């Protein structure tokens, strides 16, 4: 039975089936809808709510609801609603690009380690372990401190510290799949190593990597907020983390300036986790049959 499954699994399931499973899950769909809503808000919202998030529009520290400012104003009298709308774009962009960076590094390292084995694997996996035991926040802080607090350096820093899990998952998938018959068949029919890695094995290892990457998006958004809380954010770009970070010292007296972006992050990360779970169910036949 077990052997049967293992042989069947590599065949790529019809895309339709994956979609069906995904959309059957109530929570996954909810997450997706929220995520789309937030993305729409971030990218199209500024057209409908054109207040510049950097303009000082009203009295500082006006609580939510004051004089038509739905979410109030911050310490410089800037509109928090506008900051949330415009911040969505940047937070999501940082989340996805950082996850993409970790995915890129993780898959690269994991696939080579898994495929070649031997000293390549030894070296690459020791490197992965090194990154895994590093205190990620501290390491990211060092990177941002060295290269300055720009969106690019923050994204790269988050990507650079969170790829280890992707690398390990990729490697273990490669270790399993590279021994399977269809890979041997491919090799016998003359495929070179690179083609084997990227055309034959990787597509079949994609499922867990996609799920892991989806979760990394949420983690990256919270990571950005964490860095911003410690003051490491780009003051020229509005992101939710930046809103939290710059309002931090007023937390005792103007709690809403910190909680509102906090709630935005919470909802987004929750939505991403729901989508991630949904993807996991849809892509993983073992779980689905249960």
């Amino acid at each position, binding site marked *: 039975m077990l052997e049967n499954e293992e042989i069947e699994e590599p065949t790529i399931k019809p895309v339709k089936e994956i979609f069906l499973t995904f959309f059957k899950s109530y929570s996954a769909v909810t997450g997706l809808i929220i995520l789309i809503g937030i993305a729409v808000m971030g990218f199209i919202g500024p057209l409908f709510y054109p207040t510049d998030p*950097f303009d*000082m529009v009203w*009295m500082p520290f006006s609580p939510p609801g004051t004089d038509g400012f739905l979410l109030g104003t911050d310490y410089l009298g800037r509109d928090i609603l506008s900051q949330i709308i415009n911040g969505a774009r940047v937070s999501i962009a940082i989340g996805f690009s950082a996850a993409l960076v970790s995915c890129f590094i993780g898959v690269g390292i994991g696939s080579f380690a898994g495929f070649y084995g031997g000293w390549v694997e030894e070296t690459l996996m020791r490197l992965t372990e090194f990154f895994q035991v590093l205190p990620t926040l501290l390491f990211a802080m060092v990177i941002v401190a060295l290269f300055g607090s720009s969106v690019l350096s923050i994204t790269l820093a988050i990507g650079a510290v969170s790829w280890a899990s992707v690398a390990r998952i990729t490697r273990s998938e490669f270790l399993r799949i590279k021994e399977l018959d269809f890979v041997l068949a491919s090799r016998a029919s003359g495929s070179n190593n690179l083609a084997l890695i990227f055309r034959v094995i990787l597509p079949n290892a994609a499922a867990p990597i996609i799920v892991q990457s989806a979760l990394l998006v949420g983690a990256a958004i919270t990571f950005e907020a964490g860095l911003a809380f410690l003051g490491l954010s780009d*003051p*020229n770009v509005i992101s939710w983390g930046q809103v939290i970070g710059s309002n931090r010292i007023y*937390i005792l007296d*103007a709690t809403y300036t910190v909680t509102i972006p906090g709630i935005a992050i919470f909802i987004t990360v929750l939505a991403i986790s729901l989508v991630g779970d949904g993807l996991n169910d849809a892509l993983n036949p073992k779980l689905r049959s249960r």
Partner: protein
Amino acid sequence: MKKHFLKTLLLTATLIFTSLGVSFAEPKKGGTLIAAVGNNPRHLNPAVQSGIVTGFPGAQLFATPIRYDNNWEPQPYLAESWDISDGGKTVKLNLVKDAVFHDGVPIKSSDVKFSLETIKKHHPFKTMFAPVVSVETPDEHTAVLKLSSPHPALMLAMSSQLMAIIPEHVYGDGQDPKTHPQNSENVVGSGPFKLVEFKSGEHIILERFDDFFIDGRPYLDKMVLKIIRDPATRTIGLENGEIDFYAFENVPTNINRLKKNANLNVTPDGYAAIGPIDWLAFNTKSGKTADVNVRRAIAYAIDRNFILKAIMLGVADEARTGIHPGSPYYEPDVEAYDIDIDKANKILDDAGYKKGSDGMRFGLNVDFGWPGLRPNAEYTKAALKKIGIDVTVRQSADFPTWAQTVSNHNFDLTWDTVFNWGDPVIGVHRTYQTSNIKKGVIWSNTQQYSNPKVDAIMEKAGVENDMDKRKALYSELQKMLANDLPVYWTNTLPYHTIYSNKVGNPPMGIWATSSPMDMTYIKD
């Protein structure tokens, strides 16, 4: 008649206060003061280390020749009297006779000589004792300072944390005084309190020195200085009663919040000589800000009133010049650059900076020296957009990075907080002197501003012993600086002292906690 009237008034007042339950408690011996310090001091020896963080424990551990009262009047301290002769070029200090260091060794004039020489060599404030050529010690209790020129700043430089008297038999052992092990442990001081323990990052514990040279003082048995960096933690500690005392609070929301607490007193008094001023400094040598028109336009576009009301929430004062408004030399009658966007735009138009299609003329960077100034930097971005200057806020990774950027002159604009340190010679001249353009040195003339007339006035004012003449010189200086605008001064940093109702006589002089707290006590 008048006497009788006063007596009646006094009696009535006493009756009223007694009936209200207010008592003028006599200072009482005993008790422990739990205070907070906002940062970790590098070490505790103020003779070789500047800064208010070392100043707080430093002024308790080490005595200075003189101290100041609340009205800028010098008072005897380790020197029971002094004579100034030879047109201000000879200053004789008569030391207290029975003063001893914490290890019991008598404090002699040779220690004063040693301390001054050490400070002159190792303290970052080079102007403090620059004219002092030699110190003569005719006997154990007399030190005579010989100066090359009159130096009115000398009196303030001999007070507070600026001229700690350190024991020659300890710090004169040949080791580098800046890294001497006894700067942090087994400190042998001359002040009212001795060191029990300094645990870096955690606390400094001080204990009454029983053989202190002023009889009956200090009143406190013990001072515990807790090192608490996070403002919110300190605020909550004060509210809970875990901390009795905190000086140098400057977060406006915290100040306003603590003012509402009936158990606490919040006061801006006591910082006149520290003289902290927030300002926007310009790079006057390179980039667009080298043009005085650009600097003036920026000053007109930045609303000092907005900073005072919105960012500082009403707890700070206006500062129109580089001399603190609490100083006797402050000249408020200068060009103030009150907000005028139209004028700012016109200045830039006339100077030939045309707006592009996006409404912007050119871009500038703004840096800021410490996190408290980040709102000012963000405000600058919003404010200068109105006159077509596209500002990028640059966040430095940490203080040393910022200091390196600015001191190497790689900036356009930077927000900064700079202290007067009592006399203009100590804390003001350094910002504008041509001779103090020193690459790599922070809080030197990093603006690279140079005006021979300004240099000449400062040189004259530095040696002028006549108070009125000196005031006139500094008045002229401030007007010239406001015209050239190497720096746009906005406000005083709103330093406040917060102390609980049980603390009597908190330090309210001109030097805040950089002065001995031998008169502070704990009420019943």
